[in-house]
């Protein structure tokens, strides 16, 4: 490709230069293929499955639907930035311990969606949880263990032992 866009994105608090990019590249593509952040996954390329969920200025968005060059000047957060010392967040831990992970392809997007939900609502009811996760498709689990993981996080955050 002879295209040569140059811009800077702020990803997980760090300024990242993007060079010689094609203007049509999605944020998902740039994160995965140019910035070495493959945690966000591409599974539908049209905002239906949520596997590519990232935060742009604290809004949960499908990075496949965002042109990377339009994200200049925003704060982008990806699954890799949730806990950079390598330890697990409470949501990640609950996904592992409650069996919410099978193939794992939807998992990073779901982890981001659950963080987003619980950051904005510390005691969601069943319908609120289901609605908040309904933009993230999981084909393996049938969602049962994912709901169990969310319930565990809510309980732990409230100081109720699970």
């Amino acid at each position, binding site marked *: 490709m002879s295209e040569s866009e140059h811009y800077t994105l702020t990803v997980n608090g760090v300024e990242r230069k993007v060079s010689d990019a094609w203007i049509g590249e999605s944020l998902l593509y740039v994160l995965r293929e140019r910035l070495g952040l493959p945690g966000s*996954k591409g*599974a539908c390329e049209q905002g239906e499955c949520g596997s590519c969920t990232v935060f742009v200025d604290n809004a949960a968005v499908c990075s496949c639907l965002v042109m990377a060059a339009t994200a200049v000047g925003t704060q982008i957060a990806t699954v890799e930035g949730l806990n950079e010392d390598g330890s697990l967040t409470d949501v990640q831990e609950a996904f592992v311990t409650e*069996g919410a992970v099978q193939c794992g*392809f939807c998992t990073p997007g779901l982890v981001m969606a659950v963080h987003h939900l619980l950051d904005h609502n510390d005691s969601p009811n069943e319908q609120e949880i289901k609605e908040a*996760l309904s933009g993230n498709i999981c084909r393996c689990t*049938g969602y049962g263990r994912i709901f169990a993981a969310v319930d565990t996080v809510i309980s732990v955050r409230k100081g109720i032992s699970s």
Partner: protein
Amino acid sequence: MTITKTQRDILGSSALRPDGISKVQGDYEFSSDLHAENMLWGATLRSPHPYARIVSIDVSAAWKIAGVECVITADDVPGQLTYGLISEDQPVFANDVVRYMGEPIAAVAADHPETCRRALAAIHVVYEVLAPLTNPEHAIDESHEPIHPDGNIIRRQRIVHGDMHATAPIVVEGTYDIGMQDQAFLGTESALAIPDHDGAGIEVFVATQWLHEDRKQMAKCLGMPEEKVRLVLGGVGGAFGAREDISLQVHTALLAMRTSRPVKMQYGREESFFGHVHRHPAQIWMRHHANTDGRIVKIEARFVFDGGAYSSTSSAVLINGVTHTQGPYQCPNAIVDGYAVRTNNPPCGAMRGFGVVQACFAHEGQMDKLAAATGIDEVEIRLRNIIHTGDTMITGQILESVAPLERCIRETAAMPLPAEMGLQPHELDLPGGSGRTADRRNIVRGIGWGVSMKNLMYSEGFDDYSTARCTLTNGSVELKFATSEVGQGFVTLAPQIARSVLGVDEVTYDTIDTQIGSAGSTSASRQTWMSGGAVDGACRMVRERLFEHVGSLHGIEPLRLAIDDTDIIDTIGTLRISVQEASANFTVSETFEYHHRQTEDLDENGQGNCHVAFAFVAHRAVVDVDVELGLVKVVQIATAQDVGRVLNPMSVTGQIEGGIAQGLGLAVMEEIIVTNGIVRNPSFTDYLLPTALDAPQVLISMIEEPDPQAPMGAKGVGEAPCISVTPAIVAAIRNATGKSIDRCPVRPQDICF
């Protein structure tokens, strides 16, 4: 936070996935995440027509685009031009005729996915469009010319059993249609091929269900010896049958060999719909003859599976279908005729349930018709007919498997029903969900039943085996196997087996690749039994060697030794020594190949011991239906499943809940819509999948009656959950609406009109 364990992760525990932490952190490497230095991207040109003659292909303009490094067509295939799992009838690239929409014609390699897209657009293909064969009946009645040199009938199989002229006072019949379902794994097809420096071999990282079978087919098409084609499992984002056939494997490898550079291919979602086979759409007619007490006397049936353009596994799907005509019920007399046919529709093959999903939808519809005709309750009519261990099936095969079917049904029936919907329900609890369209006054609740049996492992004389190696060094074990981990959790189970057999805690597994014998496919509910059996066998051989070592050191006959937790003990003496200590400075490695018992082909009358074993399950569905709008919400699924023995409760729960969601999808929303050979909805916008809002409450009972034929007593649990849940949901919709609905998925118009 860190995860702390409080118990040993042995068989029976809910051991956690060893890959779980890397998956939640996003650093698990799926095949689509792989990169190599100097890598090119590959892409595939596909036919827009379901049936056409290729007049000419001009690739010259594509070559001229800056960044394009390679363009290949059928002329560039160095080895065999066709491939296939059972019959090698599918071209690597179409060269004279295209037989389905989406058939590959050419492939390119370039520096960027966008360059690839432009190169594909620059390839000029001239087609002479032909009238497609899209009605499977026209394949059978020979009213359409053969669309393939192998003809339009892929396989026909009859079953004739007992008295063909038997009849009985109650006769019910129905014709059932099952739609084309997509596996819709989240991680689309992807591979990275890296040619050897000497140009004589290649290493391919690929998401697949069966590394060795892929390698066999690839080597033939590449014209290379198998040992020069090394496959490594790339992280697999789900499979469900769709990775049993090869897709982009040969194309990626060929581009890499041609360019002498690493090439990565990854399908987008739309291409994925064209890149893999689907669940066969089928039409099944059944007529049941029964006595007034509800007991089945004879079943007549006719199956037509639309295999699409290439045979894939259609012949095996057909056999699964026809041999499960009776379902989990006794049936002394049967006449069955089954066809798997070739059409210009999308190729169909393996999907979770593999032919039994279709048969079950029909036989369970029939059981409800029988209940209605005899005035016997839906549960009672099933209980009166259930099959038992030792009964003869319509193939003449004696059912040898443990068959706790009565428990499955009774335990399901005993589970609590959900509360009635309140007068002012939350809008998200209404059918239609967040669409807020349903009106409480139009909502009717229904309850329905589905019961099924499913064969486990491969059938019809296939010498099915799996290989595993166990190496014990200084108290820790390394396992090696080629078993595809696709999300099901074999990588969790295998270390559990080693810990239980050897009394160790530290167990790792080596890279999953072709550097050991085949494990067979991750399909047919077979890996816990087959690869579990192989790991169990290898660990037992190592244990024998360890006991010999300890016995010689202590002057004890090795037969007296046993594992007790993490110790070796003398069962009639006082010696107790930890496995850790006993294996200090001791290394032993053993490889074991597990084979299941031999099966037979069916004869021309469909008689023969063709299946290895069976698992059983019951489902009860509760639905709410808006009868005005035709919207359905599945409220609850209760299920009791015959699992043999629970080796990991959390994994089994995950398989059951996940399978139920897929069966729910087939019941009320999932269908690839094909009009005259044209696929209308190849996207996640138009092909609807169950979301969190569609997930019903699931009540589960795991029936544990260990099967003596199964290693560790455990039956495969992957397929059973998705089989009878579909007819149970559709029966519940019939129950709510009073409509005779004989197709799935059920569409709003099936309810409203």
